[in-house]
């Protein structure tokens, strides 16, 4: 029973946290300098990881689907299957989960360490709103960077899908791309890519929330980092289910 109460309390606190964030983030002054630093932290520092994950997904997709398509005599569809799989689902979800691990843990641990060592209090005591300086900048950076990182994952996945395919059966890049994108519509690409902005919102919100509610020294920091990754990953998966359904309704 107490677990249920705790769950409701957690959501209640998160609701108040979002309300305060919305109130403070939208009003000037804006923390441009810190925001740019966070764009680099979230974006540039995750690029390699996300690209590698996207590339690995492209290789696996190519290897796995090739055999299946051969059985049904549908081998010419391989580029299309790789491109559509990556654009519509694999690229976005892989990016969301990878960034959730790297950035979620990083933000959660950083803010928790700042909280337990009174650094957050020091920011407040300077007359600066930590919600503006710490939270709004990180959440917004996650929202903006996730779709861009998804593009990187998509590109690397398609590239490595092509390379893997070419090693087995040489095909030109031009032909692979032309065939792959032949049945891809703009909504196949745009909506799934933009849905990762919601993943970014989830990662930023959950990690900042868990970081700032940390208590109890190093144990609190460890708990905040772990909770940030676990909760953000669960919410990303749940949000993905809802968003896929929504996209299918809006773009049938």
């Amino acid at each position: 029973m107490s677990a249920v109460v705790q769950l409701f309390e957690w959501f209640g606190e998160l609701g108040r946290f979002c309300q305060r964030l919305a109130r403070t983030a939208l009003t000037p002054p804006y923390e441009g300098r810190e925001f740019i630093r966070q764009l680099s932290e979230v974006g540039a520092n995750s690029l390699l990881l996300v690209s590698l994950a996207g590339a690995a997904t492209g290789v696996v997709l190519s290897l796995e689907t090739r055999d299946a398509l051969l059985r049904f005599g549908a081998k010419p569809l391989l580029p299309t299957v790789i491109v559509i799989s990556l654009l519509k689902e694999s690229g976005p979800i892989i990016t969301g989960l990878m960034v959730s691990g790297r950035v979620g843990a990083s933000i959660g641990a950083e803010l928790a360490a700042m909280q337990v060592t009174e650094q957050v209090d020091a920011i407040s005591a300077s007359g600066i709103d930590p919600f503006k300086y710490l939270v709004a900048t990180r959440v917004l950076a996650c929202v903006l960077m996730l779709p861009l990182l998804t593009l990187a994952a998509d590109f690397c996945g398609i590239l490595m899908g092509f390379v893997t395919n070419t090693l087995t059966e040489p095909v030109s890049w031009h032909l692979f791309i032309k065939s792959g994108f032949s049945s891809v519509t703009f909504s196949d690409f745009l909506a799934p890519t933009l849905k990762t902005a919601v993943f970014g919102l989830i990662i930023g919100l959950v990690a900042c929330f868990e970081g700032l509610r940390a208590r109890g020294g190093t144990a609190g920091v460890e708990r905040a980092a772990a909770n940030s990754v676990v909760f953000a990953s669960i919410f990303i998966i749940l949000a993905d289910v809802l968003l896929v359904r929504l996209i299918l309704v809006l773009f049938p």
Partner: protein
Amino acid sequence: MTAKTSAPALQVKALRKSYGGQMVLSEIDFDVAQGQTLAVLGRSGTGKSVLLKLIVGLQQPEAGSIRIHGQEITGLGLKPLNAIRKQIGFLFQSAALYDSMTVGENVAFPLRHTALSESDLTAKVHGLLASVGMEEAVDKLPAQISGGMQKRVGLARALALSPNILLFDEPTTGLDPITAQEITELILKLQAEHHTASVIVTHDVPVARAVSDRLMLMRDGRIVIEGSYQKLLQSRDEFVTRFIQPIK
């Protein structure tokens, strides 16, 4: 920055605070005039640090009043509260330096939210670090300097916005006697230069005696006695006697 009214720089009345039903502060009354220093003494866990956090609005009291230059800060909205906080410098017990920033960036942090140009800001940061003897450490990270040095940098950061009230939370705790003495001398020097109203929370009686005009001894969240060191010395209360003269 100077006081705009003739009211005391800091005035606390009937302040009360509790956590989960446990009283931490009760019926706290005192005021500090501009240029004066009050030392708050007491055993660990007696609510001294909470008192400082209430004064700077980091926590809200259950009852009572806190006035900064005559302006009530309890229940104040975030924007006006932040404007008042800029008049207050706070040295945290752990110094609370931002560990991802260099010493120079730490001191510059409050100044980045003012209209100072980059060149003026750099000059001010160097001036502040020079005043606490830490100019050479400008590019070092907090983890690369000692605890005493961190306190010095914390002091420079607390002074960055030229506050007219300074709050010190255990400024010498955890430092060796020589470094503690250096920090005490630094506080005295900065008080003389900046003419601030100060509240120093400590359980170090010699430090309290050296830097303050008045002392206030607390026990279980209440004021036991307030006055000059002589007044505390003359007290017949056993707790006061034991605290002021621990070794006979």
